[in-house]
């Protein structure tokens, strides 16, 4: 089970370029994903521009199995126009320890990664995705 929830090897320890930066962190251009076995399915996205700056991320379907996005082609163009099979969706989450343990995810602005070209961006979706959803464990 734990093995199944490992971050993919096309992602793990790989550097992804974010040509548009990350909203709130316009200077960021490159990130690297890391994950230790006890952390699955969560992983850390570090930024190369600021080695101390990091985000906790999780692949979208571990929190929302039915999550899907409708993204304009124009939004995907800056990351090499990935097709559906080349896209990976992640949420940036904020962890709040306690009982219950809370995971706050931004469902309106997922990260979309082109797993072959190693590019990514955060998209802001139109429509009804809640800005923040809290999951309790």
């Amino acid at each position, binding site marked *: 089970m734990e093995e199944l929830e490992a971050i993919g090897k096309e992602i793990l320890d790989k550097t992804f370029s974010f040509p548009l930066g990350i909203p709130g962190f316009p200077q960021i251009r490159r990130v690297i994903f890391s994950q230790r076995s*006890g952390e699955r399915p969560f992983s850390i996205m570090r930024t190369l521009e600021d080695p101390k700056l990091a985000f906790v991320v999780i692949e979208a379907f571990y929190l929302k199995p039915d999550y899907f996005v409708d993204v304009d082609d124009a939004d995907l163009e800056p990351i090499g126009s990935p097709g559906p099979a080349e896209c990976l969706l992640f949420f940036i989450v904020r962890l709040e320890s306690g009982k219950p343990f809370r995971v706050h995810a931004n469902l309106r602005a997922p990260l979309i990664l082109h797993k072959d070209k190693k590019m990514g961006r955060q998209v802001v979706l139109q429509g009804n995705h809640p800005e923040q959803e809290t999951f309790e464990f």
Partner: protein
Amino acid sequence: MLVLSRKPGESIKLGDNIEIILVAVEGQRVRIGIKAPREVRILRTEVEPDISKMNQQSAFQLEKGEDSEILRQAAEARARKASEKEKPAK
């Protein structure tokens, strides 16, 4: 900044293929219709700063050693909840 007055039903064109239509005025709210090509991104202005703010709240500073403790806690809490739900046979 250019400021124009429009009545409901009137519109404004931006360039060749974007049209802003003033649909209705209801007290403090103005309803606006937008005709634009699909590739034009249209966002309520307040949304983008919200995303920046949420990212900034989610960001954390990596310190050596202790950084992944909270990820382990999260993973354990999630696994515990999953096993409660599934009630595995053994």
